């Protein structure tokens, strides 16, 4: 099939063998251990899933399999053998010979990895041509074939476009084609679908899996999403704090994990809340049309009722108008027509016309806790400001209340002087929750609050939100594209598509057939913890 297929070993030969690899990272003037002695063996034609929460060292280990340590890291000891080549002893020039020809890397953000100034097909074949594996016209012809097998639309011409002219999912597939173009022995996928919508993710996953199978390429698939890794990998290695927790064949790992930590990862999706209907409407969005800059209409006649003390989840892929709805409610984007009613009275459309008390009652929690907190303010400043601002608390009273709030979110006094940069992702999101609580709101809008977090941390946050709802009777408007989260915490669900409400109702009604087409597509695209799920889905959809 290709020029270098003859040098390929047989399926089952050991391709890469790492022994007792230790990697250090430099931060805060000191070297810290990131990976603490991990072994890894990968055979030809096998796909290994590497999972763990952020900071577990999975990406660092994945890159080390190429013999590469990113700036600020160094591989301290251990051995890395790639097909008989000792990567620890290899020079930069020797390693560069391997990279892009025999080892390829697919990064998380395709949009950030392409050069916007060059056509896609030129970038696809660049490494192949540079390494002299084949001539430019042959490589381009081959690339069209790859586009076709990755099911890209119009494979003959799509390569002539520039990166901004294709969608995120297509770009990710083109990056896979780029990695596949030199027919490498090993591809490292580093969270390739994390940035994609569920509906797009399915297409990309299928394409990646098929092409890896077709060319019998070995792959390391790095992710924190268990359900995804279950579809892709032959066997799974779980990492935590830079150490291996366990490794097993995928089916065995899913059905009978041995370590407590692995079990806890698996149990996350078991969180469930029983729905309870209510007619006491706290917040009501009535026939809202909204547009950015008077031209592009993003919301079309949206009406949503949110009952008091309940959770209403808004689901849909990106661009469906979920976040815009939140902006309309908060007054950041005044609607063109329609109104927002809160406790029966109509709220002024624009933020600046609302009273301090109206503002206090509706609070918001953001997706990225990193950017939602001022990096120069301490936790006490962040939580204390709404206390001063809305409730006039000062000095000792304010400090006492801050500690009370910290305890409410399961943190303690010792966090008061910390800066956001000194908190973990989950802790940051908790502080954001505390800031919202400090205002003593009636409604909290949660915009994708768990999507940037690891599974275990996600579960912790969701449990916290549920507990707070029970204790304080808070109403949540939960914006998300993660159906697992939706089933876990909501009472009612609103499905949005292209700025319109497709369906609205109690959880049991929406999540049970018959579905409108779009709901069906959305629901069936959510990966399940069943290794056969993807194959079954592909069959079903034909």
């Amino acid at each position, binding site marked *: 099939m290709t020029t270098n297929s003859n040098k390929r070993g047989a399926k089952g030969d050991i391709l890469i063998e790492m022994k007792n690899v230790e990697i250090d990272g430099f*931060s*805060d*003037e000191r070297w*810290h251990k990131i990976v603490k002695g991990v072994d890894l063996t990968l055979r030809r034609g096998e796909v290994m899933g590497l999972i763990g929460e952020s*900071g577990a060292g999975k990406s660092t280990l994945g890159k080390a399999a190429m013999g590469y340590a990113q700036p600020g890291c160094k591989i301290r000891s251990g051995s890395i053998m790639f097909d008989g080549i000792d990567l620890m002893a290899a020079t930069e020039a020797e390693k560069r010979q391997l990279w892009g020809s025999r080892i390829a890397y697919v990064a998380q953000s395709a949009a950030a990895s392409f050069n916007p100034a060059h056509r896609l097909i030129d970038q696809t074949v660049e490494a192949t041509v540079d390494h002299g594996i084949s001539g430019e016209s042959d490589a381009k012809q081959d690339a069209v074939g790859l586009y076709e097998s990755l099911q890209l639309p119009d494979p003959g011409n799509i390569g002539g476009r520039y990166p901004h002219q294709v969608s995120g999912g297509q770009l990710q597939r083109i990056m896979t084609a780029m990695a596949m173009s030199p027919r490498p022995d090993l591809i490292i996928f580093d969270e390739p679908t994390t940035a994609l919508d569920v509906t797009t993710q399915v297409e990309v996953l299928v394409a990646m899996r098929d092409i890896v199978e077709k060319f019998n390429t070995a792959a390391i698939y790095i992710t924190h999403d268990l359900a995804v890794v279950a579809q892709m990998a032959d066997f799974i290695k779980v990492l935590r*704090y830079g150490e291996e927790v366990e490794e097993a064949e995928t089916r065995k790992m899913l059905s009978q994990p041995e370590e*407590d*930590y692995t*079990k*806890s990862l*698996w*149990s*996350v999706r*078991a969180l469930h809340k029983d729905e309870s209907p209510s007619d006491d409407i706290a917040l009501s969005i009535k026939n809202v049309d909204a547009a950015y800059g008077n031209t592009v209409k993003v919301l079309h006649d949206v009406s949503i009722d949110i009952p008091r003390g309940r959770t209403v989840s808004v689901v849909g892929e990106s661009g469906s108008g979920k976040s815009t709805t939140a902006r309309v409610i*908060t*007054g*950041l984007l005044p609607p063109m027509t329609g109104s927002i009613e809160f406790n029966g009275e109509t709220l002024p459309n624009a*933020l600046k016309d*609302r009273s*301090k008390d109206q*503002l206090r009652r509706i*609070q*918001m929690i*953001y997706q*990225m806790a990193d*950017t*939602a*907190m*001022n*990096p*120069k*303010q301490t936790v006490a400043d962040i939580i204390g*400001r*709404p206390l001063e*601002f*809305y409730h006039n608390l000062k000095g000792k009273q304010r400090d006492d209340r801050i500690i009370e709030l910290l305890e409410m*979110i*399961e*943190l*303690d006094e010792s*966090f008061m002087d910390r800066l956001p*940069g*000194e*908190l*973990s*992702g*989950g*802790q940051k999101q*908790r502080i954001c929750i505390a*800031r919202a609580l400090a*205002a003593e709101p009636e409604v909290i809008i949660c915009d994708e609050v768990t999507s940037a977090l690891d599974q*275990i*941390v996600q*579960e*912790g946050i969701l449990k*916290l939100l549920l507990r707070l709802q029970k204790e304080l009777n808070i109403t949540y408007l939960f914006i998300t594209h993660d159906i697992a989260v939706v089933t876990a915490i909501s009472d009612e669900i609103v499905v949005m598509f292209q700025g319109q409400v497709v369906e609205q109702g109690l959880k049991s009604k929406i999540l049970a057939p018959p579905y409108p087409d779009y709901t069906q597509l959305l629901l069936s695209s959510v990966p399940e913890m069943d290794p056969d799920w993807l194959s079954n889905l592909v069959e079903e959809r034909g």
Partner: protein
Amino acid sequence: MTEEPQSYSAAGEVAQVKLRRGLGERTWIALRKAPLSAWFGMIVIALYAFVAIFGPYLAPYGEAQVFAKADEPWSMLGGDPAHFFGTDQIGRDVLTRLIYGARNTIGIALLTTILSFLIGGSLGLIAAINRSWLDQFLSRGVDVLMSIPSLIFALMLLSIFGSSIPSLILIIAVLDSTRVFRLTRSVAANVVVMDYVEAARLRGEGLGWIMGKEILPNIMPPLVAEFGLRFSFVFLTIASLSFLGLGIQPPTADWGSMVRDGSRFIQFVAYDWTLALPSLLPAGAVALLTVAVNFVVDWFLHKTSGLRDDH
């Protein structure tokens, strides 16, 4: 599989390992790693500051005290031992004039820079937050001001309003604030889009809070660096204006006018090199301070960000 995760606690989550150090300790670590050029710059600036502050105690004579013999050469070149750097064309002690010149030139430059930051910084912040017609109005106004060569513009304004020290400070401050405005607006624009600024708005915070507490602390490093650079340029502008005779007026001592006074002999330097000294001394003082400030700013910029203003 319904059991609780055994080891999970929110407080126990591993955050980024980071040592909390006091300001003093952090400064010391930064200083220890500073390159030689930065050290040189800091020492020079400290010396200048010392001379400027304690000028009246250091100077051997009064600022405008006139002695019998004019154009006396340096004492080591055969002049009167009472005048180390000799006397100028009307018999004033050059060393004294240099010391007082430091006080006047640096003081006025510092005041002007601070004023230009107050004007440019606050308008830049408002423009970045507001982003409406006000932003357009201010930005286009700044474009207009910047399209006129600033030295010529300053000369024109000074000849209209007269070259008193207050009008000198005000005119240079306004002209320089345009660049401060541009920098502040562009760095603040990156911060304004952050969620925490939106959160502050949703809370109902006023403009003052958003400017001072949410945005300003996050854009300090480039502004501090710009302050150093701007100071150098203001300092040079004042010296050039004085050299042209429209800056600081006699009898107030100032380096720019000292260069001009000394330059009378410039065509005779080919015959007697010591004639260049009365001009070279203040010019060297100007150059040394400018270089020193730039060394420090370079190091600071390198440390904090890749942001560099190439003017």
